[in-house]
């Protein structure tokens, strides 16, 4: 039985797809058979972030409508053999996804994989609700910014009421907070919400902190999930997040501005604490 994890946020542009791609890749690199599904029908982008956009032949909607088999639509990742991508349709409308169809697809994937990562579309409409409906766990991606935090709280409301677990009165979806685009310099200046405040307002467990990083854009330009860039702060922060997801206890990094000595500042050397 696979663990189904939805990556969601409510607000758009906070890093859902970047996070879904990085986390799915990280899980696969750690030896888990992982599939990542793009639920953003009509506006697919996961394929671009994963760098497999030219290999898309069939998609999730084709599979649901019986036009292609699951194995025809699954794309094997170039870099890790444990990882597969199920792209969203570019052309169809959102109504092409049905609850029963999604359930069937997830059930068959569940037999083959350890982890199923669902990359949710933005918003709280049907597409987002379908992406979270069958989830066992949820990663709520939040930026340190008022609209993102508020929308995350709305999504938490949906997770606790509009999911299969909620409707069947089973244990609730396990909710994790992933704070992205965190800038400790601005936090120190008092112009960005700090991590403690976000955790206090949303009152859910923190799974990771991703600093604002130039590596993210560089990675998406190249179609290589940022977790492959293990020299970068964001790549390392995602690797930490994956470890925590797998139940390891990893200390939090990148929360504070690194303290560097004068010499290090002059010569650009010195390690990040």
């Amino acid at each position: 039985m696979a663990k189904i994890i939805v990556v969601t946020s409510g607000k758009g542009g906070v890093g859902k797809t970047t996070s879904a791609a990085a986390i799915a890749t990280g899980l696969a690199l750690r030896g888990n058979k992982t599939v990542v599904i793009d639920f953003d029908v009509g506006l697919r982008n996961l394929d671009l972030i994963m760098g497999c956009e030219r290999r898309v032949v069939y998609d999730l909607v084709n599979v649901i409508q019986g036009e292609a088999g699951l194995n025809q639509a699954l794309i094997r990742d170039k870099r890790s053999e444990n990882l597969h991508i199920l792209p969203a349709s570019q052309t169809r409308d959102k109504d092409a996804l049905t609850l029963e169809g999604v359930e069937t697809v997830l059930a068959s994937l569940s037999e083959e994989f350890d982890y199923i990562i669902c990359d949710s579309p933005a918003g709280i409409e049907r597409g987002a609700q379908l992406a979270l409906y069958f989830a066992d766990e949820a990663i709520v991606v939040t930026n340190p910014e008022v609209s993102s935090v508020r929308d995350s709280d709305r999504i938490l409301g949906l997770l606790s009421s509009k999911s299969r677990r909620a409707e069947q009165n089973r244990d609730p979806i396990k909710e994790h907070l992933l704070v992205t685009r965190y800038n400790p310099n601005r936090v120190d200046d008092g112009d960005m919400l700090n991590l403690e405040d976000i955790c206090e307002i949303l009152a859910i467990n923190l799974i990771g902190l991703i600093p604002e990083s130039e590596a993210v854009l560089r990675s998406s330009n190249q179609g290589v999930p940022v977790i492959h860039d293990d020299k970068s702060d964001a790549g390392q922060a995602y690797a930490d997040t994956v470890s925590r997801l797998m139940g390891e206890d990893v200390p939090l990094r990148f929360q504070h501005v690194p303290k560097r000595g004068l010499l290090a500042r002059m010569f650009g050397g010195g390690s990040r604490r």
Partner: protein
Amino acid sequence: MKLLDFLKGERKKSASVAKERLQIIVAHQRGHRGQPDYMPMLEQELLEVIRRYVKVEQDAINISLDSEDDCSVLELNVTLPNRE
């Protein structure tokens, strides 16, 4: 140094403003969480009925549904204007 602190403290840090605003809006949102879908409509229509008789503001009405065990209480709070 004290003077510097004073000058710095002059402008409230924007992050703490953000936190205060969020705490209020999130508490409000949570109040509505788990409510039946018809609640906003019910609130709107009740307000319309009340306004037929008393002149109250749009936000003068507060409605909530609390459930305890096998009993649900619909609480309606209307702030009436001062009598002229």
